[in-house]
């Protein structure tokens, strides 16, 4: 059974154009997202900047409320649960952030940072220090780091502290919100290996949010491709990478920089038009990818295609497959 299920999650933000206007539109940051995360598996979520990946992460952690939709953790609906009742469940879903420079408070020592979630779930005081020492060893840092402040650590070390904090309460689901994107390649490899080791050790389930596609291929069991808040394609990693169905997925995979490709067909590579207007115009009901699609059809302009299963567990949302 899936440990985490997202059902039709939508998050709308209203925006005002000027001070005097009451209401001038809405942005769908996340639009009807359905995802399942199996226990002990990794779900990779890819998409360009600003497509709603982090909003989705915040919804899963119940840091923001979705406009509509349901999140099931271990079979239990959590978006409607009150904060007080949800608190015991919080320890089971944790997050590692992208920017190791803003994810740690500068005023606290490393041991206090890692101890914080333990204190929050009311662990006994004498056990906390023991657990903190155990955690710091697990993420491959020496005991001497416990008394340091974050500004005395490098980016990679900070990220390890962030991971140690997330692991402190032995969560079952870990959301990795671009957890390695801001690190250099060798550190990335170390952190990824650490994460894989921890997953095997504790049967953790990861939601791996990233924009590095080769990295996602390496760690994920299933992949979901997101564009403008909508999941356009999802399925087993191998199927998506070997046989991408949606034009946006093809485009993404095509844009992975590679030496041979860049020599061969640099010219006929299709480039995406930068368009940050999102779905501002409410009159447009068609496919969100319409403006960028290399092969748009007349029906694409009228209606958003639904997700359709085209292979085993391989879903795609495009009229080419209707």
């Amino acid at each position: 059974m899936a440990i985490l299920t997202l059902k039709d999650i939508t998050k709308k933000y209203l925006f005002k154009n000027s001070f005097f206007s009451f209401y001038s539109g809405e942005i769908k940051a996340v639009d009807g997202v359905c995802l399942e995360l199996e226990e002990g598996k990794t779900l990779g979520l890819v998409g360009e900047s600003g497509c709603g990946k982090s909003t989705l992460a915040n919804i899963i952690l119940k840091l923001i409320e979705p406009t509509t939709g349901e999140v099931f953790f271990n079979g239990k609906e959590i978006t409607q649960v009150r904060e007080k009742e949800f608190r015991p469940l919080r320890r089971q879903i944790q997050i590692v952030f992208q920017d190791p420079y803003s994810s740690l408070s500068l005023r606290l020592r490393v041991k206090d940072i890692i101890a914080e979630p333990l204190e929050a779930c009311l662990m006994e005081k004498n056990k906390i220090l023991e657990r903190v020492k155990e955690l710091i060893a697990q993420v491959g840092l020496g005991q001497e780091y416990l008394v340091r402040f974050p500004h005395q650590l490098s980016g990679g070390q900070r990220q390890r502290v962030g991971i140690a904090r997330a692991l402190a309460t032995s969560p079952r689901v870990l959301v990795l919100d671009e957890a390695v994107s801001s690190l250099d390649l060798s550190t990335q490899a170390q952190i990824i290996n650490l994460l894989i080791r921890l997953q095997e050790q504790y049967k953790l389930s990861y939601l791996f949010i990233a924009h590095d596609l080769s990295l996602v291929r390496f760690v994920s069991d299933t992949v979901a491709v997101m564009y403008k808040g909508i999941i356009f394609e999802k399925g087993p990693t191998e199927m998506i990478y070997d046989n991408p169905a949606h034009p946006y997925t093809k485009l993404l995979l095509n844009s992975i920089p590679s030496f041979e490709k860049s020599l061969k067909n640099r010219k006929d590579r299709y480039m995406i038009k930068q368009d940050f207007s999102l779905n501002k115009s409410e009159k447009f009901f068609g496919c969100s990818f319409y403006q960028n699609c290399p092969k748009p059809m007349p029906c694409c302009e009228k209606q958003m295609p639904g997700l359709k299963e085209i292979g085993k567990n391989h879903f795609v949302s495009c009229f080419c497959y209707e």
Partner: protein
Amino acid sequence: MKGLHLCNMKKFLNHRLAVSGAIIILVISVFAISAPLISPYQPDDIAIGQYLLAPSAKHWMGTDILGRDLFSRMAYGARISLIVGLVSVCIAVIQGVFFGAIAGYYGKSVDNIIMRFVDIMLCFPNIFLILALVALLEPNIIIIMVVIGATSWMGIARLVRAEILSLKERDFVKAARACGVSDFKIIIRHLVPNAMAPVIVSATLGVAGAILLESSLSFLGIGVQPPTPSWGNILMDAKLSLGIAWWMTLFPGAAIFITVLGYNLLGEGLRDLLLLRK
């Protein structure tokens, strides 16, 4: 990155303004603390026939119209003026941080109510508000401190609110919320300590303002009440003998000037060190 790591003692010592301000404050504080040791007379001892004597070896700063030794009165007055300055700023900081933190963290209508209240408070001309309050209540030193504190917290509340508005969106606050840390603890442990740098600067500058305000109130006769000496009411006494006893106005005036200068220099120095640093 803004930070309070005063382990940068070296940087502080290299900052001439800040150091000279700190030295002035230190000297004045030592002067105030050691008042019983250094003053040759009791501050309210009246020497009959020795009124309005010019400074001499016997009376270092002369005597006042009642024949009291001005140096002794200045030393004891320093205690009152400094204590009023510091305590009222402490009250203002506590109040400002409390309201600012709540407004910034909870946002929406809470924020709106608190900040509109701040706007209303800022509309009152400070000194007239205090005049009205002191007229209603009996003026004594505690009331003076509370009233000065309660009318000067708005700037700090605004600073703290602004800092917290940006801090609460940071990932470390999200991480704490994701762990189930309570709102109160997030504010106390994560937000307020990270928002303290501008508060410290503004509080240091605020001490100077509070000392000035206390002096003006005492000068008007509604501050610290005689016979307790404060720099302000020594100046008030000097009013009567303005033309004939220059020492009566010079010394308390200079003391207020130097102390305010000291706090302002320290405040500006701290601003350079804590806020403008890259």
